[in-house]
């Protein structure tokens, strides 16, 4: 009887499996832990959130910043100068007034004096214009602003709060927390008095590991600003209108300690956020930090639902049943199985054509592939080794584009073995990266030339990867004094050239890389032991404790030129991300400078310098930037999207700079084209 049931079931399933619903199903390995844009950091969550939540800004198909919930935005800056007395301030203003011809060039809009303070308002943020103006003035009459920085290692908030509670309170005009690992305070004058007091305070608190030093003295204080004008036609999924209250609430929630938002460091830079009316948001920043604008690509939360709710309620209710403004509404979520979103008929850009978007959560790449092959999901991020087979198969459409990611072998530079640049370069020569790309990625990738993938606009295209050259490797190792011993493994001063390469479990590509590095280095007389650990152990026992020789890892980054967390020498403590221990004062200075730069041309130049300086020092063996490859069943979808002028354009699924899935919310199934504007007529044959 059981057999009869099974056969019937089998026949039923197989006979109906070709009647598709008007849905898009996506297979994914990673399942989000919570659907809340300010609490989640995983890509698996943003994959879902992009359909539910919307942000003020987003990247368009060319990865350029575009408005979404904001109707428009303007950036500006206020520069403050302090003078010895009111008279000098007035003189300075008149000098600036005299040079009115240069105002457009400086982007200066207005200037006024308030006592001994001179305030200048610019229509673009940046330091250069303010510096040019300052050059006109009598430097002797101004008071400088001095910034002190203290590396506290996680205690920044407690330490600074205690310091500010001293009697009489220290006169600090600006503070900033850098990932809570450090704080910066800005004072008027040379800062010596403040530094002395801080040192005394630290000594009294027995915080001997904390040191404060002057990092910057500037004649003026620059405060960039962004003003957003919000769209008025946007409603939350429950019908409530979207207003500036929601933006303010999202910001306050991020700053709320109990929310534990991983996005907080981006928003620590905000000095103030005000909402003069329901459709306007004014934001002032503590210091020039050009990547700050991108932080407004964060999904916004509905204040009317979440306000005054305890965090447990967020976890139990909202994060499992989110409400947003996006094209799809949350429907249900069966853990470890599927997550279903349904069409938002009141979407402000017009309702999507698909009735639902379904995410299926599957445990490993094999099950994802099986689900795709059995048409249980509509697209598949192809495993590299299967790309060739799928490319030639007429049933499928394959999309390929460079991933925002690079893979590397990181050398722990604290280990004497890796401190010689010749040794590191030799390793880079000895490892056959082109072969790796050819056979592990099946040609779907390019050799990496440093910390920025080549398709990022600020990446340096002239930097050439280190070529595969075992002879050069041998020569360099000989030069460095490592000579082959009895068993073929090189030795120096009785020490063997041997180390352990650690990899995390569950990543086939990294495991293969490790095996190949082991094999390649063995041919030049280096003994490598490969050790594989599960992720929890890998991170907490080795990487975070800095107890490893070498590791295979990858960085996935958006098009973000701020590489401070990974490369600045202040980030080398246990648990921080410069775990290889890279330390170069020149790079430190460049990393600090690029964050304050708003001019794309200068950003590109600085990024190039950073990339070159790091690449030449080879703290990593830069491997490759893989391609992301996706397959969909041919002709299963088309795109019909707003053309921006009130009409729609109908195109096949095409690849954009932002990936093939950029227009996913406008996908439709050709067999369900009746509900498109104009019905079937819009369909090209």
């Amino acid at each position: 009887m059981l057999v009869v049931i099974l056969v019937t079931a089998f026949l039923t399933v197989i006979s109906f499996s070709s009647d598709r619903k008007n849905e898009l199903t996506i297979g994914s390995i990673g399942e989000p832990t919570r659907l809340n844009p300010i609490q989640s950091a995983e890509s698996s969550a943003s994959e879902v959130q992009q359909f539910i939540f919307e942000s003020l800004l987003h990247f368009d198909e060319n990865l350029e910043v575009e408005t979404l919930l904001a109707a428009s935005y303007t950036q500006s800056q206020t520069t403050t100068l302090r003078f010895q007395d009111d008279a000098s301030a007035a003189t300075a203003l008149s000098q600036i007034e005299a040079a009115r011809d240069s105002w457009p060039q400086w982007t200066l809009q207005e200037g006024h004096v308030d006592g001994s303070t001179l305030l200048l308002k610019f229509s673009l943020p940046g330091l250069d214009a303010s510096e040019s103006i300052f050059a006109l003035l009598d430097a002797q009459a101004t008071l400088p602003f001095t910034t002190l920085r203290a590396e506290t290692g996680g205690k920044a908030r407690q330490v600074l709060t205690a310091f500010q509670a001293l009697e009489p309170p220290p006169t600090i005009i600006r503070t900033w927390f850098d990932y809570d690992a450090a704080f910066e305070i800005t004072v008027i004058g040379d800062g010596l008095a403040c530094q002395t007091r801080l040192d005394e305070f630290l000594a009294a608190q027995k915080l001997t590991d904390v040191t404060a030093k002057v990092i910057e003295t500037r004649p003026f204080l620059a405060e960039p600003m962004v003003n957003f004008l919000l769209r008025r036609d946007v409603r939350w999924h429950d019908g409530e209108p979207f207003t500036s209250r929601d933006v303010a609430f999202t910001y306050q929630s991020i700053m709320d300690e109990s929310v534990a938002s991983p996005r907080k460091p981006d928003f620590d830079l905000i000095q103030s956020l005000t909402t003069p009316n329901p459709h306007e948001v004014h934001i002032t920043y503590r210091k020039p930090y050009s990547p700050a604008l991108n932080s407004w690509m964060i999904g916004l939360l509905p204040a009317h639902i979440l306000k005054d709710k305890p965090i447990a309620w967020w976890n139990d209710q909202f994060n499992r049943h989110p409400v947003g403004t996006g094209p799809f509404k949350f429907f249900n979520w069966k853990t470890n199985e599927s997550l279903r979103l349904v069409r938002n008929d009141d979407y402000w850009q017009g309702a999507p054509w698909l009735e639902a978007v379904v995410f299926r959560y599957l445990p490993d790449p094999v099950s994802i592939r099986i689900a795709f092959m059995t048409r249980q999901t509509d697209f598949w991020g192809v495993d590299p080794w299967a790309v060739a087979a799928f490319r030639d198969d007429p049933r499928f459409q394959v999309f390929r584009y460079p991933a925002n990611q690079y893979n590397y072998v990181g050398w722990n530079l604290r280990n004497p073995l890796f401190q010689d640049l010749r040794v590191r370069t030799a390793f880079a020569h000895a490892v056959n990266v082109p072969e790796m790309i050819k056979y592990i990625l099946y040609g779907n990738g390019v050799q990496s030339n440093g910390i920025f993938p080549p398709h990022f606009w600020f990446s340096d295209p002239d930097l050439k990867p280190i070529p595969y050259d075992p002879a050069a490797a041998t020569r360099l190792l000989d030069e460095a004094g490592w000579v082959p011993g009895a068993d073929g493994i090189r030795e120096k001063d009785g020490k063997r050239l041997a180390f352990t390469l650690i990899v995390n479990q569950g990543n086939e590509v990294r495991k293969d890389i490790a095996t190949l590095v082991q094999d390649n280095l063995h041919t030049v007389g280096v003994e490598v032991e490969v050790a594989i650990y599960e992720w929890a152990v890998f991170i907490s026992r080795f990487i975070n404790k800095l107890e490893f020789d070498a590791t295979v890892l990858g960085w996935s980054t958006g098009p973000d030129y701020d590489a401070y967390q990974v490369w600045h020498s202040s980030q080398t403590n246990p648990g921080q991300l410069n775990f290889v221990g890279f330390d170069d004062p020149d790079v430190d200075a460049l990393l600090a400078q690029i964050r304050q730069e708003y001019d794309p041309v200068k950003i590109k130049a600085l990024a190039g310098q950073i990339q070159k300086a790091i690449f030449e020092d080879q703290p990593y063996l830069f491997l490759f930037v893989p391609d992301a490859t996706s397959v969909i069943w041919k002709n299963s979808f088309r795109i019909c999207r707003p053309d921006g002028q009130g009409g729609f354009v109908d195109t096949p699924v095409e690849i954009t700079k932002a990936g093939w899935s950029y227009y996913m919310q406008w996908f439709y199934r050709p067999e369900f084209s009746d509900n498109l504007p104009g019905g079937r007529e819009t369909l090209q044959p």
Partner: protein
Amino acid sequence: MNPPAQTPFRRAVKRFRRNRLGMLALVSVGGLFVIAAVFAILSSADIPFPSNPNATNLERKLLPPNPINWLGTDNLGRDLFSRMLHGSYISLTVGFVAVTVSLCIGIVIGAVSGYFGRWVDNILMRVVDAVMCFPTFFLILTAVALLGPSMFNIIIVIGLVSWTGTARLVRAEFLTLRETEYVRAAKTLGQSTPKIIFRHILPNAFAPIFVTAVLGIPAAILTEAGLSFLGFGVQPPQATWGNIIADGKTYLLDAWWLIVFPGLAIFLSALSFYLAGDALRQAVETRTERK
């Protein structure tokens, strides 16, 4: 004092030889041993026969079975046949040593419990209950995560969680045997307790214990394979049948040979042990059917 041992043994051998399937299984178990022993030696001496199991050759990756690579190659172009041969001793070692560990614990606990009875029995049996209550597989997973996935640790962990069956069996045997005439006689003669346990009772319980042990080996082999499958087994680059499958599952639809052959090896060796063990049971059993 010893009961006559020769005759039943001969009878058992004779019976066993009549069981053709059992003989076949025994021969294949023997063959497995020889292969494992040979390749354990080759492996530790780094002798690349039939070829180096760890040598990668990317140009020959994921090839189906062919004249050079009899069973095909894996994702790094390593020869599957060599890897399976060089990995064969791991499965067997894990099976054997884990069973030995579990036997040692099981016999001691079971013997003490069955011989002394009363409160000792009560406490020890509750301990057995407790151990049986642990979700075994999670216990193994956490313990392997705790100790690190080396062959030695895996053996210990499997041994530590699989002794309860043996303990219960030994206890039951002891409960019956301690009431027999000759044990009573030995007690009356004033022999020491350990002597009675190990000289008089244990040899008589030997047959069922031995059968349990033989049947425990394939179970341990399968547990190791399951652990490897989840990535908690002996770690690469050391090949084992289990981790060849675990690595190969990614290529399930491209390279069937990476799944089929090692799985077949596990299946056949486990089957041989089971059949040999069952034949053994039938041969040594004094009554025609028991249990």
